[in-house]
């Protein structure tokens, strides 16, 4: 659909906050936002380009990593220091989309993308997550959906979120700082949002406090490249502590209990197969981070 939006590349935080508080939608690389607007998802009058805020840094300092909100995915994937100390994130970033999409997409855009559910994104349907009454996926074809029952059975798609979650990252917004997991929420009857961002709030950066001793990202897509993960598992080992995070299996990027990784993920009618897949990916990821 072609229609016109107001586009503003904001130059300071106050203006960004003002426009976003007024219903504007944040633009990073546009690889998700434009496809949403094209289908009438989360309609807005104003597109707020955050790339002029100087939030595109990738900085490794004192063993700590700061990923700016508008740093490009491709830059994360090819950053030498990221690869050296936070290889998990380079792996996650490198697995996203295609080279072209990685060159456009941004860190915050990837973290904040909406579910890829084919009903949610269907231009002619208004599903529960979009404010309607019906989760079409539950009564329809949910072969790629989650393992967790609920009002909405779409899955969190961000590969980068899996890596950051496993590394114990924090995310900062223009208003607060919080563990990454708190950026996400399961949508509820009275609030269908999948993010905890308030009106006017936007992600400014993600920070990783320390490198893991060893880490790995394993995922399976629908083809060898340029596919969202059917499931992905990031694993990081800090001494004896194992942190496992999965995407593609629940509404939110999910921290798994290494002792019982499938807990709370019983599978749905058409997704039982994903339990086997997840279990394999967990085994592979854990094997990859075993002490030498």
């Amino acid at each position: 659909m072609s229609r016109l939006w107001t586009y503003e590349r904001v130059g300071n935080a106050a203006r960004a906050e003002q426009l976003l508080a007024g219903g504007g939608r944040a633009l990073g690389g546009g690889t998700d936002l434009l496809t949403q607007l094209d289908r009438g998802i989360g309609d807005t009058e104003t597109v707020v380009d955050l790339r002029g805020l100087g939030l595109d840094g990738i900085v490794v300092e004192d063993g700590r990593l700061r990923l700016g909100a508008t740093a490009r995915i491709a830059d994360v994937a090819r950053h030498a220091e990221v690869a050296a100390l936070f290889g998990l994130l380079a792996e996650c970033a490198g697995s996203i989309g295609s080279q072209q999409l990685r060159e456009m997409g941004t860190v915050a855009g990837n973290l904040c993308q909406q579910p890829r559910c084919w009903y949610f994104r269907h231009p002619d349907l208004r599903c529960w997550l979009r404010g309607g009454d019906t989760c079409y996926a539950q009564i329809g074809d949910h072969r790629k959906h989650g393992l967790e029952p609920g009002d909405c059975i779409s899955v969190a798609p961000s590969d980068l979120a899996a890596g950051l979650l496993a590394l114990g990252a924090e995310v900062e917004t223009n208003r607060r700082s919080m563990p990454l997991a708190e950026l996400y929420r399961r949508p509820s009857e009275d609030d269908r949002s999948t993010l905890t961002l308030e009106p006017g709030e936007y992600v400014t950066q993600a920070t990783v406090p320390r490198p893991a001793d060893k880490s790995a990202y394993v995922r399976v897509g629908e083809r060898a490249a340029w596919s969202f993960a059917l499931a992905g598992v990031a694993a990081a080992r800090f001494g004896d502590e194992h942190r496992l995070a999965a995407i593609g299996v629940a509404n939110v990027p999910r921290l798994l209990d290494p002792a019982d990784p499938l807990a709370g993920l019983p599978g749905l009618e058409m997704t039982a197969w994903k339990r086997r897949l997840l279990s394999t990916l967990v085994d592979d990821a854990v094997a990859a981070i075993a002490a030498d």
Partner: protein
Amino acid sequence: MARLVRTEAVVEGRVEQRYTVVEDDITPEYDLDRPPGVVGRPATRVTARSRVTGAATFTTDVRLPGMLEARVLRSPHANARVAALDLDAARAVEGVRCVLGPADASTLGETPALSDHPEFAGAAVAAVAADSGAAAEAALAALAPVFEELGFVTDLDSALARQEFIEEPSESERGDVAAALAAAEVVIESEFDAPAQMHNALESHCAVADWRADGLTVWTSTQSIYQAREQLATMFELDPERVRVICQFMGGGFGAKFGLGAEGVLATELSRRSRRPVRLVFSRRDENRAAGYRTPARISFSIGADAAGRLQAIEASAVMGLGTGGWAYPILEPAKALYACPNVHAMVLPVKQNLGPAAAFRAPGVMEGTWALEQALDEVAERVGLDPLELRRRNHADTDPGTGRPYTSKRLLESYDRAAELAGWDSRESLRGQGRVRRGMGCASQYWWGGGGPPAYAEVRIGAAARPVVTVGLQDLGTGVQTACAIVAAERLGVAVDEISVRAGDTALAGHGPFSGGSMTLASIAPAVRSAGHHVRTQLLDLAAEMFEISATDLTLEEGEIRSVDGALRHPITEVTSKLGNAWVTGSGSRAPNPEGMAVNTFGCQIATVAVDTATGVVRVERVVAVHDVGRIVNPMGARSQVVGGILQGLGFALMEERVIDPTTGTMVNAGLEDYKIPTLADLPEIVCEFVGQADPHLGLGIKGLGEPPVIPTAAAIGNAIAHAVGVRLRAAPYTPRRMLEALA
């Protein structure tokens, strides 16, 4: 002298009788003892530069002064009646020049391009043309359609139960299947579910129409400019000579773009009414909902064999989901014609569904029919304890099993041998391994038509600069047929391939040519091009003979020179052509009919090696060996490209491609490329490609078609390789991690 002859041609399984004008062909055959020069040498595409620099004009690139943008209102419902549609409100939108409702298009086309009873989600209801896309979108919104939703049927079972058919169910039988099955020592029962594969040509359906007082010009992405012209002339009651259809470049079609299409109909009617050029381009989503797909099908077999693996009987049936259109593609033809089986009964049920119309798709019917049959054959081989390739050899058909006709040529047995050698077939049992990843190797045979035939005409001319121009009345689907035409002409004219320009894709040019389908374009046009080139050659040599005072029979054209056979005389061709001034030497040629009473078929064998990760369900195709028998190869580089593309498309069918229809709403949920996955280069296996074909002795220039053969056996070979690897046969494609894990659970 021109003659009118009646000919028979097999086009994608349908026999067509037609009258055609042919001229006497005085062109000598290729000397089989000597390679015919440039023919058979790899050549880059004559259009390569313009394609990669962006200079090539595709239909979507056409911009005319005053051109309007068109948009189509489509029903979101699987079956509905239009209860209200505010055409006046749409017409009142600023910048809107023309609005068409269902009543305005009721006489246009056999299936009206717009309907007030849209029978599938995505069916067109109204169309608008406006000064800008945004104005056209606003007009669509202003139409404010009200739909009365009706019940619908989308799955095959319900459609079969409803007993509505696109074509009457058909049956054919030879021999006595029931008796032969009862007597067979081994009987297997086997059923397969083929998915609907979407064409997803890079360029979606599109047309630009320019209706003027002195005639109509339509640019459109079509596989048959002449068929489009005929449809336009009939539909709009125009003299065909006043209708010009142009398709100089197209970004693929794969069978979904024969003739005019709704985009051409609507663009033309909008242009006729608005008296402005109108451009209509389908979105990817519209394309995938309304512009065709490979038919999904349930294919069942009972196959009886003796203990030695010789086929005794095949009972075959297929339920084909044709949506709201298309035709019963020859899905059981492989069961009837691939092997020497004396008793075959085949029944086809082409059911109607509330889905867009099916369309031909690269080897329609035969590809999915082969996918099923060739896996059932492996099941027979397993039951009788025979090597799958040996089973196929034992059932080789020496003549066409249905008609008893001899083949013009058949090198299927050689294909098996060569493919086995290249693949390392004999050591396939050592591939498997005991770990989590299991490897397997599977084979499949390929059967198709592809002999080409008349009518096909070509014109060749050469001017002062000695840069020949070949004109053919066809469109290049993307196969590189123009390059092949240049190669064929270059051999007669003794100039380099890149000295030749090929004009095609425009009905205003000379000569009527074949459509791009049925793997028949090159086999049809090449003899006409060579004949036209030969006429020019003869005249040039006559001119040279006069100039140099030597007999023309002592002269030849080679490497840009006119040479005497004894080598004493060598002059650049331009020494003769420069005397032409602004005149040309021209020649024309036509395609002669194929021999009567013979079967013209292409054959081949592919062997796939796969690795199955039994813990993730991921199937990786590691290697495909493709050996095809398609007669003479004109351009090995182009031929290999066809094979690579075909294998990738077959791999897509096998591993990832599948239209998904929501059972609750009847709408397609993966109509965009985000959800509908086609293979990427990262999925590409190693491809080993060879051709066993020497020239077919009964066909013009010995050429058989290659467009469709490579896609036919790939998915079957992959299915057989998976079964070999893990001992489990998946009954439904694509073989996704989900299906693989469910099957292994």
